């Protein structure tokens, strides 16, 4: 999603003349499904002084979800969706969703439909939720 920050390396169209380097891609990615894996990754990165980036579905136009030499925590598969019928904050009370970081707009809409409520999402159906 951010070819400029990634360095536009290893584009399949350039195979005849170029070389394939890893460019701005992270060196390793943890495909996380639970909190424990995130904790392991953060501890590993901190204790070894590694660059750490967080990648969700890849919609960061400023390239923050990529990083050369980094360890990447990939949150795309955190898909928990929990419907809370009555949720109260000082400024809001009513139905709410508690969403995993990897839940995409289309999935949220499907869940909202299931519970008969409306959710306001982002630009396109694959966008990660900003919640």
């Amino acid at each position, binding site marked *: *999603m951010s070819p400029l920050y990634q360095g536009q*390396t*290893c*584009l*399949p*169209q*350039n*195979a005849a003349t*170029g*070389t*394939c*380097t*890893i*460019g701005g*891609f*992270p*060196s*390793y*990615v*943890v*495909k*996380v*499904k*639970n*909190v*424990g*894996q995130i*904790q*392991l*990754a953060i*501890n*590993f990165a*901190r*204790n*070894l*002084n*590694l*660059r750490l980036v967080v990648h969700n579905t*890849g919609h960061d136009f400023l390239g923050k979800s990529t990083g*050369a*030499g980094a360890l990447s925590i*990939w949150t795309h598969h*955190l898909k*928990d969706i*929990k419907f809370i019928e009555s949720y109260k904050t000082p400024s809001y009370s009513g139905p709410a969703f*508690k969403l*995993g970081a990897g839940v995409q707009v289309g999935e949220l809409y499907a869940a909202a439909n299931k519970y008969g409520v409306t959710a306001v999402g982002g630009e396109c159906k*694959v966008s990660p939720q900003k919640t």
Partner: protein
Amino acid sequence: MPSLSKALLLALPLANLVAAQTIVVDGEEVGKSRRCDWQHRTVLFSLGKQNKLTQYPAADADTVAPAVEQIANIEEEATAFQLTDDVLANLTSLELSNITLFAFGDEDATESAVTKRSNYKRTFDRCKTFPGDLLWPSKLAWKVFDLLTGGALIETIPIGAVCYENNPHYDAAACTELLAHWTESATQ
């Protein structure tokens, strides 16, 4: 158990990092410690059988299981599985060395975290460790990391690598397929 974390971190000299990547498992101890005393939680950690490892361990999915435990009364599956001081202590007691690499930071320091961070920067002024640096974790360290996460670690291979003839991942058919779908958002 912040004091545990502290002790673990203090026991992490720099030299250890360089050599870090040799993991020594004491076969006897490992065998003994497989017994699980946990009653209220499921501990998804175990170290396998016949480890006659003096130099390099046969660290694989059979001998090292994910280092997470299920916390009771948490509904969401993703949140329910966590790395805890207990898990770390368990790993440490099994003498799988360099487990300190996965230890938590010092929670007591939260208050002065900002000050600490700036001091740290002034004192050491060092950059992040990058691939090719002396302290970059070895393949073995990454492998152990992979095992502790339950096989969740992916070593990055650029998606376009299949199109480069001089790349080990060259695959003409996969390349054709990739080029055919390159402009679709699902591809990237």
